[in-house]
């Protein structure tokens, strides 16, 4: 599976989590029953996890983030698979951590894409 962010193919992640979120208020009435008021549409969050990524691959992902910061929400899509994404997303890159010794600075981080 390949992914496009802002029209540019990004490195294939080690793993990917797809979460659906909803916004609601939960109330309890006088007879004890619980009700929920839902607001707005459900939204998707994709967390693309990368492990042992080189400095240059990290910089390429960071460039996508910078593109989002400069231009606003970006189009996120997948290619060649049955999963359909195709939506505008907010882009975040979380902490980059280094677990492998050596001079290559291979690191782990996550690219978090939140449906706008």
């Amino acid at each position, binding site marked *: 599976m390949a992914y496009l962010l802002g029209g540019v193919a990004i490195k294939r992640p080690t793993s990917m989590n797809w979460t659906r979120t909803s916004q609601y*208020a939960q109330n309890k*009435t006088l*007879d004890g029953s619980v009700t929920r008021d839902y607001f707005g549409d459900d939204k998707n969050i994709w967390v693309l996890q990368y492990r042992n990524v080189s400095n240059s691959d990290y910089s390429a992902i960071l460039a996508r983030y910078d593109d989002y910061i400069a231009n606003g929400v970006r189009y996120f899509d997948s290619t060649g698979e049955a999963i359909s994404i195709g939506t505008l997303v907010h882009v975040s890159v979380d902490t980059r951590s280094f677990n492998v010794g050596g001079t290559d600075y291979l690191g782990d981080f996550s690219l978090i894409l939140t449906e706008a």
Partner: protein
Amino acid sequence: MQTVTNAFTAEESSSVRHIAESLLVSWKRDYLGANRTFTIGVSTIGGTGVIGANPGAIGSPGNYRYFDETSHLLNLAWERGFNIPTGGVTKGMAEARLDNNSGRFTPRYMGGNSELYTAILPERPFLINAGFDIGAKVMLPQFAGLISEQPLVDQGNRILSLKGEDYIRFFENKFLDHEAMFTSQMTDNIMETLLTGTLGMSTAQFELDAGINKIPFAIFEKGIKMSQIFHQLAEAENGHFYQDELGKFRFENRQHWNSSPYTSVRKVIYTAEVLNQSTPTTDHLINVVEVNVKQRTKQPEESVFSLAQAVRINASGNTELFVSYDNPVLQVTSLNLTVNASEDGSGTDYTTSVQIKNRDDFAQTSKITFYNTSSLTLWLTSLEIRGRTVKTAPDVYIRKQDDSSVTAYNERTLTIDNPYIQNQDWGQSYAQMILDDFSSIENLQSITILAKPELQLGDLISWQGRYWRIFDIKSTLSPEYGFVQELTLLQRTIRTYFRIGISTIGGTDKIAP
């Protein structure tokens, strides 16, 4: 109650509800109507603004072009309630918080560059609609008003806060620019005259119940706020003047709810829909009512002014004289004058040489312009004006009390001092009606329910097996609390009042107060 479909009702009673809401703001105040009253600073010379007696008259909310700001909405709240216990003018209020991460609501002077950067200003019309998503979003009008304060831009938290009031606010900023007198008019006649004649509104902008109160004499001083006039008139009727969800002004008299469909229960509230029920407080308790009745009576023709000191009349020209009356004069019927050559009244009588060129009568003054046709300086030595006046009789003081309530809670007194309660019988009934409603602590309470946006002020609902009239609705719509309403309820005993052609003499129907 606003009309809704069965699907809407089913969704609002469901344990899983999908809320739909919208906030529309006319940031640029684009007016879509063909004509509006010319307003300095808004209208342009040669434009479509119509010159009228009422600069700045408000238009209907539906005539503005709005920006849909729903996608930026964080939460909403709005409230509309009747004045308890006497009635009068009531004003609705609303507030909204919007997300400003995009910088859409950042003004130019704070570094903003959006299409709205010069329009983040007060006095902008806005609309709130709310309802449910039942496959499609079905929303009901909830509030129409104006942003009342400068929108608060919180750049640190990227939030815009709006506060607004309904169009009743318009009457708080309008002052009567001339004295007005009315004799033997019903409340709605006076209101209509002021709304159309003084404020320049069209009859489509308001709906007035027929007044029950016939006011023998009303005088409104120059400079009084229009909201004060409407408040006193409505309060004197024990009625309500307010703006509904659609932006229409309404006057409802005290008998408004006494006949169908208002006598039937519009909604049964079930325990499974109630989030909270609060203990009634003693704040509203009234067990003694004092009413000061201002009786004014029209007088037969009499002398209303007599000149005390001679007045000089300039030769071959105009001389203006202002005269004051002790009481308001409904009509000047005659004016007799004597003009002499000398100040002491001696010498040649020149009365025929002096004409009354003009006379402007106000309530308690007249401005008279004399024209001297001769080339001599003359003296007005006598002037008697006759007319019909209105005199204030000594106030009649009415006091009523509920003895059992006074025994239980001690005296809780309400004094009503309204110049348009001019009838002693009505003063007595008014006091009794307030005691009936407010001398018992359990007659008023508030409940918080899962919102039913079709409810309106005055709707009769059933709760805990009793009938209650809605006197206040405070709606909150937020992801934190959901869509909930706090209702202030007044318990009612539904009576059938006597109707000509339907009720029978000797039957159970009562005479309406």
